[in-house]
Each structure stands twice: as C-alpha cells, then as structure tokens.
C-alpha cells in the first residue's frame, strides 16, 4: 500500500506525457480516488505490505528507500487522495491541461512520499520534491501577482529547508543511520536536542505556517490557482503537522520538552491572532488563509503538548481541517462563479442559491468547531490537553471559540444574507457531487470521531519492499 500511493500518481503523471488530451483530468481524479481507496482498504484490513527490508538507495551515506505507514500516515494519505481528487475535478478549463495534470500528479506523489518515507533522506527528498511542481503550478497557472508570490513562498520554504538539511545531516552523522526505525531507538545527547529540534522545526513551522512565519500564506492562497490553494491548505500544510508529530516528538523528546513553553505560547498567540486577522478580511480566500493560520496554530499547540490525548486531537483536527478547507475552497469557487469575484460583503445570494447556502453554512460551521461536525472533537481534545498543561493557556486558546464565530458568521452574512442582488443560479449537480461527499465525511467524523482518532494509536507497519 505504501508503494501504491507513490506508483498511482506517478503512473498518472507518465500517462499525461501521452497525447491523451481531455482524459488527463478524469485520470487525475481517478488517481486521487484510487490512492485514497487503496489506503482506506488497507487500513480497514489492518494495514498491508509484506514485511521485508527496504531497498538500499544511496549506500555510502546509509540512505534507503524505506517506505511504510502507521495509523496517522494512513489518515493523511486518505486525506491526500481525496483532496487531490477534489482539486483535480475542480481544475476545469486550465491551459495546457496535460502539463498541468502531470505536475499535479507529481505533486500528489511527492506529498504522499512525505507520509510514507521511513528514512530521513528519503523524507527530505520528498519534502523538497513537492516544491518544484507546486512552484511551477503557481508560476504558470496562478492569478495576479503570481510570480512575486511564488518567489516569496520559495524563498521562505527553502530557507527553512536549508536548516532542515543541516539538522538531518547532523542527526544522521551522529546516529550513523537515517532510518526512522533505528532513530527512534537512538538516544541523542540531551544538550544537542534543542539545537536539532530547532533546525527541524524551522522548516516545519514555516510550512505549517506558525506565527510569525506566515507572511507567504494569504498571498499564496489568493495568487495560487484555486485547486492548488486547496491542496496547499488541505494537505501540504499537514506534511508539517505530520513531520512535527512523526519526527520531532519521538526523536527529540528532550528538545521538544525544553522548547515546549515557548512553542506553546507562540501557537496559542497564533491561534487567536489568526482569528482576529480573519475578521478583517474581505476576500474569501484570504479569510480562509487566516482562519487556517488560526486552526493550524491550534493543531500545532496540540502537537507541542504531545500527550496522547493531544496527539489524537491533532490527528482528528488535521483530517478535519483538510476536509473542511477543501470543501470551503470548492464552495468559494462556486460562489465566485456566481458573483464574479472572491470579494464578499454585498450578500444577497441566499434566495437565489439556497442549496449552495446550506452547504456553505455546514462547511463554515464545521470550520468554526460546531459539535456534530468533525471540527469539534479534535479542537476539544487539544483544548483539554492545553488546560491540563496550563489553565492560562487553555483560557486563552479557548477564545478561538468566540473569535471563529465572528469571522465565520461574518462570511456567511457577507455572501448570502441581505436583499437579493443580480441573477444567479443555484449550485449545479457537478459542483454538488464534489462537495457533498466531503461534507458527509465531515459530519461522519464529527459523529464518530473514534474512527479517525483511534488511528493515532495504530503502530507503524514494517517497511515494505525487497532487498
């Protein structure tokens, strides 16, 4: 299964080299769905893959092509498949579709690679490899100001990656291995843990992003083509969450513990700060960006607390944010098609498009943590962990409950309420078919969060592949 999620999108990317024309998009959608279903089935069956050793890749430096997946990888892989399928389906009318979908599928492969890599060098390769298709997609297919924004994002992320590479080399040289399996048993000297954790976190927190490294965020969400913004927010931000939980927490326990007070404070401030900024936005995508800053900071808060409650909360909240933000971007696009821009405030769409409004309201309410949707249980687990850690942090973090209501309802009101303006049709079947499955999952996870939460406890399976 771990290998399949790489081969499927790579196959799609290769197929795009053939003159398949209009088939590229359905193929990409299929690739996403197939990956998601493969992982979901394997997880259902108790995780697959013949236990065997990994390929030796770059022998002299000890790097191996080790793949594998634990419960949280599986959750993120399903999310990746779904988001990429939804994004591909929403990528109608792109110029040079074959190039677009080839890059799109490469991006999917690289992102999946981050979640299945069981070797630090391979992890880093995938971590960096996703930059190239991402930047090209933004550079060629983006909106106004796309070049400057792409450059800014690249500079930010590569600065982080440079520090990450330093950290990986330092860790690997010290431990004489890059394999996750060996590293988790390796006890790093306590003194150097803080330094190494900082080097790793530099890259992870920039990509997440964590306050104050978010200067690229809202511009990227606005300038990127909408499907790319969708996966950027839904999945690519989760590579950072995953990396913090899968690498920093187990490999540098001491370092994370020492840094935790500062990191927790920053994440808490970021959660409230992002929410406050979201109340000021008048562009739907920018609002989603700052709301995501708030929610991702909240997730990071849970990751830094890293008790088992908090980590289960992190997993549920991450999957939830991924699903909800994907739905929100699709719905924002539907709204923009009807009113002509992503600006909101004029209102008046409700009587013209009642079904669109209902779906939008569900997505927004889920996003602001309404119980009964997936937004609530993860938030609650993280909040409980925050209170357990320090009541002051808990009280402050709980303020997002109020702030999120302000920006969420402001968005609904600004798009839908008020006297009817102009002529618009309701959401069509094609658009519905994209959004409704996502929202059904959002509610399913909200009603039975255990389905996702229990995956956090699922141990990693053995690496797959043969020598």
């Amino acid at each position, binding site marked *: 299964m771990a290998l399949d999620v790489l081969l499927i999108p790579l196959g799609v990317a290769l197929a795009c080299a053939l003159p398949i024309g209009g088939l590229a998009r359905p193929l990409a959608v299929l690739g996403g769905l197939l990956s998601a279903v493969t992982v979901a089935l394997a997880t259902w069956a108790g995780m697959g893959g013949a236990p065997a050793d990994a390929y030796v890749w770059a022998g002299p430096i000890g790097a191996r092509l080790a793949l594998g997946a634990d419960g949280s990888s599986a959750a993120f892989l399903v999310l990746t498949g779904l988001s990429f399928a939804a994004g591909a389906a929403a990528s109608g009318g792109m110029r040079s579709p074959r190039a677009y979908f080839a890059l799109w599928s490469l991006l999917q492969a690289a992102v999946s690679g981050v979640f299945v890599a069981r070797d630090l060098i391979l992890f880093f390769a995938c971590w960096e490899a996703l930059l190239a298709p991402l930047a090209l997609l933004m550079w060629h297919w983006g909106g106004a100001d796309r070049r400057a924004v792409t450059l800014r994002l690249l500079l930010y992320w590569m600065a982080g990656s440079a520090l990450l590479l330093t950290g990986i080399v330092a860790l690997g040289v010290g431990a004489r291995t890059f394999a996750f399996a060996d590293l988790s048993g390796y006890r790093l000297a306590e003194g150097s843990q803080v330094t190494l954790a900082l080097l790793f976190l530099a890259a992870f927190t920039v990509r997440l992003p964590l306050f104050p490294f978010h200067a690229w965020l809202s511009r990227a969400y606005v300038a990127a083509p909408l499907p790319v913004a969708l996966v950027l927010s839904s999945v690519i931000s989760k590579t950072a969450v995953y990396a913090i939980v899968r690498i920093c927490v187990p490999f540098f326990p001491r370092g994370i513990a020492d840094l935790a007070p500062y990191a927790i404070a920053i994440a808490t401030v970021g959660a409230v700060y992002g929410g406050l*900024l979201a109340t000021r936005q008048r562009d739907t995508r920018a609002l989603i960006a700052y709301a995501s800053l708030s929610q991702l900071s909240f997730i990071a808060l849970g990751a830094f607390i890293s*008790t088992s409650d908090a980590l289960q909360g992190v997993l549920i909240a991450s999957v939830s944010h991924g699903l909800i933000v994907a739905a929100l971007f699709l719905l924002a696009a539907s709204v923009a098609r009807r009113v002509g821009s992503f600006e909101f405030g004029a209102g008046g769409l409700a009587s013209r498009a009642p079904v669109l409004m209902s779906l939008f309201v569900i997505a927004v309410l889920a996003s602001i943590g309404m119980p009964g949707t997936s937004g*609530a249980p993860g938030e609650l687990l993280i909040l409980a962990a925050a209170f357990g850690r320090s009541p002051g942090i*808990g009280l402050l973090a709980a303020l997002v409950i*109020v702030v999120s209501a302000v920006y969420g309802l402001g968005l609904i009101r600004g798009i839908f309420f008020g006297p009817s303006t102009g002529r618009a049709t309701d959401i069509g079947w094609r658009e519905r078919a994209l959004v409704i499955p996502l929202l059904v999952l959002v509610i399913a996870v909200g009603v039975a969060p255990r389905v996702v939460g229990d995956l*956090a406890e699922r141990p990693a399976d053995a690496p797959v592949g043969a020598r």
Partner: protein
Amino acid sequence: MIQNVWLIPAFPLAAFLINALFGRRWLKQWTGPLAAAAIAASAVVAIGVFLEVHAGALRTTVPLYTFISVADFHVDVAALVDPLSSAMLLMVTVISFLIHVYAIGYMAHDHGFWRFFSWFPLFVFAMLILVLADNYLVMFVGWEGVGLCSYLLIGFWFERPEPAGAAKKAFVMNRIGDWGFTIGMITTFLVFGSMNFVDVFDRVAKDPPAQGVLSLICLAFFLGATGKSAQLPLYSWLPDAMEGPTPVSALIHAATMVTAGVYLVARSTPLFAAAGPVLAAVGGVGALTAIFAATIALVQFDIKRVMAYSTVSQLGYMFLALGVGAPIAAMFHLITHAFFKALLFLGSGSVIHGIGDVQDMRRMGGLRSKMPLTYWTMVIAGGALAALPPLAGFWSKDEILGSAFKNGYPILWVVGVFTGGLTAFYVTRAIWLTFHGQPRDRQLFEHAHESPRVMTVPLLVLAAGSVLVGFIGFPPDNGFLHAFLRPAIEAAGAVAETGTDWPAFLIFAAISTAVGVGGILLGLSMYSRGRPEPAAMSRAAGPYYDVLVNKYYVDELYDRRLVDVAKAFAGAAWAFDIHIIDGLVNRLGWAIKLGGSGLRRAQTGIVGNYALSIVAGLLLVMIVYGGYATGWLHR
C-alpha cells in the same frame, strides 16, 4: 420504553432529513404536517418514558456508542433517563408539538415554508440531545446545536438586514457563554477524570475537591448558562432575537432553548451546592436580571419585545430559585412558564398574523371583538404570568419567593415580590393596549380577523395548560412534581423533604397576590382612561423614563463601545501583520538585494583574491574544528 428513549430524538432528526432533502421540490406544504407528526411520535414515546420513570425506574443509562476514547479520556454517547430528564422530555415534546401545529397555520403563506419545517424539527432534535445527555460533552453537542438552530431561525427572513444582524449577535453572545461552558466542561474532566454526570456527582459527594476549583467550574458553567438563558450580562441578544418568526420566539426563545441554562444548573445541583458562594451569586444575578428586564418591559411598544423582556425576567426568577437552593421550584416554574409564555407568544403571533404583520401596540387597540379566542387565551396567560391564583404561574412563582424567604434571602424575596408587581403592570398594559380601548389604526382594525383553527386550537390547549399545570405542584412544597423530582435531586443531598407549611404559604401568597393585583389595578387605572402620551410620561417620570426607553443604554454599550474595542484589537493585529510581518519580509528582500550588489564587488574575477578567501575560510574552519576538538570552544 426507556430502552427506546433514543427514538425520541430520532423522529425529529428523520423529519429534518426528509424535509431538508425533499421539501423544496416534492413535499412543499406537506413538510409541516410531517414535522408535526414526527414530534407527536416523540411525544408519545416521551409519555411512555415518563410513566415508566414514574413507576419507579429512577435512573437508567441508555448507551448508544463510544464517542471518543483515548487514554483516560473516554466519552460515550449515552442517555440518562431520570425524573429530571423525563420531565423535560415530556415538556419539550408536548410544547414543541403544539407550536409545530400552530406554525403550520402561521407560516402557511411564507415561501420558505419547507425551510422552516426543516430547521424547526432540527432544533427539537438538538434540544432533546441536550436534555438526554448523560455527560457534559454530549450535552454540549445539543447545547451548540440549539444555538445553531436559533441562529438559523432568527435569521430566517435573511433578506432584511435586522434578522441577519440579530442572528449573528445571538450566536456570538452565545459563543461567549460557550467559552464558559467549554472551560467548565474541561476543568470538570481534569478534576474528576470524567464528564459523566453520575460519576462526577458521586465524586463530589465522596471526595470533594478544593473549594476554589469547584467555584471555578461552577462559575464557568454559569457563564454558559447566562449566555443561553439570556441573563445579565449576556441577555441582550434575546430581545433582538424577536426578529425571527413568532413560533420560533415561542418555542426557542421562551419555552425550551432559553431554559437550557436553568436545566444545566439544576442538573449540576450537586456541583453548585458544594460550591457555596457561587450559588448565592446565581441567585443574585437571577434577581437582578428579573427586576432589570421587568423595568424595561414597562415601556416597550413592540408586543414581542415586551414578551421577550418578560422572558428574560422570568428566567431570572428561575435562577433566583436555583440560587436560594430550590431547584425543584426552578423546574416547576420552568414548566409552568413554558406553557403560559408560549401561549403569550403564540397569542401575540395570532394578533400579528391577524392584522398583517404589525407588532407595534400603538397601532392596535380594540381587537377584543375581532379576536375573541386570542383575547381570552391571552388573558389567561397574562393572569398566569401575573401569578394570579389559581393559575399556573401563581403556584410556581410563589414557591420560588417562599423558598427565598425561608432559606434566608429576604432581600431577594423583596426584589421578587416587587418584580411581581412590575410584571402584573406590564402584562396588563400590553393586553389593554392590544385588545381594549378604541382602535388606533382604523385600517388595520377593519382588516383584522381571528386566526384559523390550526392556530387557535393550540392556543386553547396551552390555555388549559396555563390553568391546570400549576396543580402538579399542589399542595405547595409537597405536590406531585416535588415527589417526582426529589429522587433525582435529593440523591445529591441538596433538597430536604418538607411538608406544606400552610400558614406561611398563605401569608406569602397573600402578599405577592396583593402586589400583583396592585400592579394590575395601576395598569388599568393608567390605561383604561385612554393611553397616556409618551411625552407626558416622559415629563412625569423624568430621566428614568428615558433610561428605560433606551434599555439602560446597554445596547449602545455592547454594540458600539465593546464592539469598537474588539474591532480595535483586530485592527491592531492587522496593522502589525501588514507593517511588521509582511513589511519586514519586503525589507528583507531589499536588504538582500543591497547585500547582493555589495557582494558583487567581491566577484572580481582575479584568481588571487579567490585563493586568498579560500585560505581564509579554511583557516577559520580549522580553528573552529580545533577549538571543538580540544574542548576549548565547547561550553
């Protein structure tokens, strides 16, 4: 029947799903009867459950599935069926059913009919989850769910600006309360290791935690209760919520949702009883809210707003009862109030419906002859609100006031009795302005008509309730309701059994009835000789009148000043983001460019210079490496 208790919320949920999916295209006008039938089915099951509890099934937990389970954080979706919840189930389903029937008539000509009857049963579903929950987390699911439906239904007529604003205000204020609920819930879990009511209360009884922690938990929950039940300081959303359709005001903002805070505190009696001073604060806030809102109701001209402030005031009485250690009296008043206040709202709705969507009492008058049924039922409800014997409100309110005095809170008793006089006055005023005197708007009067039977029959049923429901608490302090609820609340040792103290009862009843009758007579004497001009009133009452008309300027304070402060925060954050976070990046780019052009001069192309820098670099590396190797640079 108890094992099937999950059917009770399942019916409204099914009605919601069917109406939401098929209502617009296919069911149309059938959505209303379908929703009402679903609630009727729930009510039948609720009656069965109630009878079974009455027959002796004092506490049953009906689990459904496990919600979250991680380490010691384990929460089941389970129902707790005991006297308290079964009484609430019965009240909620019966009142909901009546109001659903009424709404079929009231909303008949609205083009959002199907939408209304999708959200209305969804509300009932959420309310039933709130009532059934056996732990704080599932209760919170219902708690937020009713808030959501309230938001949707206040904003039902979203094309007008007022409902949209009122809906947002209601939700945000409720979320401030929910902040408190969340804190209380999580602190409860951290202190007791569980969110389950039964576990938590057992642990409070056996091994109470420090007083401070307990007070914090109770204060946090009480903040949640003030938001949902519209108490000071989070009350001001409720009058604005009258922008919603009248059945919504009757069901959500009078009979059921706004009592959720009372239910929460009554449910948590063991916690609050152990927290001591917080309980007194609950009583104080309740009394203050009661008199505060009643004074505002004196001068309102919008008939629904009079009722809204009246609801805030009556909810204050319930918190007063909780605060003086009389949770049964609070639940008693909750039930009687649900009947007569729902009736007052539905009666007002019948008037509004009959004269074509006018709510200003200054344009009514003399409607008695046109709407006799509405008039008489509203008189009964008004009498119950004014606590005239033997109507329902008399028994419950008198018990609250008697408990306040007997349990050592004479000041709260005085406030309560005085507020009773104000209540009698404003309800007399409202009924007189609406139904008596000369018609003040001829055209409206000519077109006024009595409502159709689908609306008046629920009025009659509720009127019967407003007369009879008080007798579930008869004889005072020792009636059926007391015997029924006592096991649920006494298990915590909070309420001692008392017989009826007839002499005391008669004295208290005489005093408060006298004050009530005084209020009515004052109202009649002022309004029967023609309406006093507001200008004349203003001159006579001086600045007090202005303060009341402006609702103590609280809306100005909240909607302007406090919102301004919050906006200033967001603005400061935005400025910081633009100038520092974003600005610094731009400045950094500029610095790099500058540095680049500076460094370009180093690229001289002369091999000697390069060699020199390589050697220098090498030397530096060797020194640093050597320093580390010898431990000279190490620490």
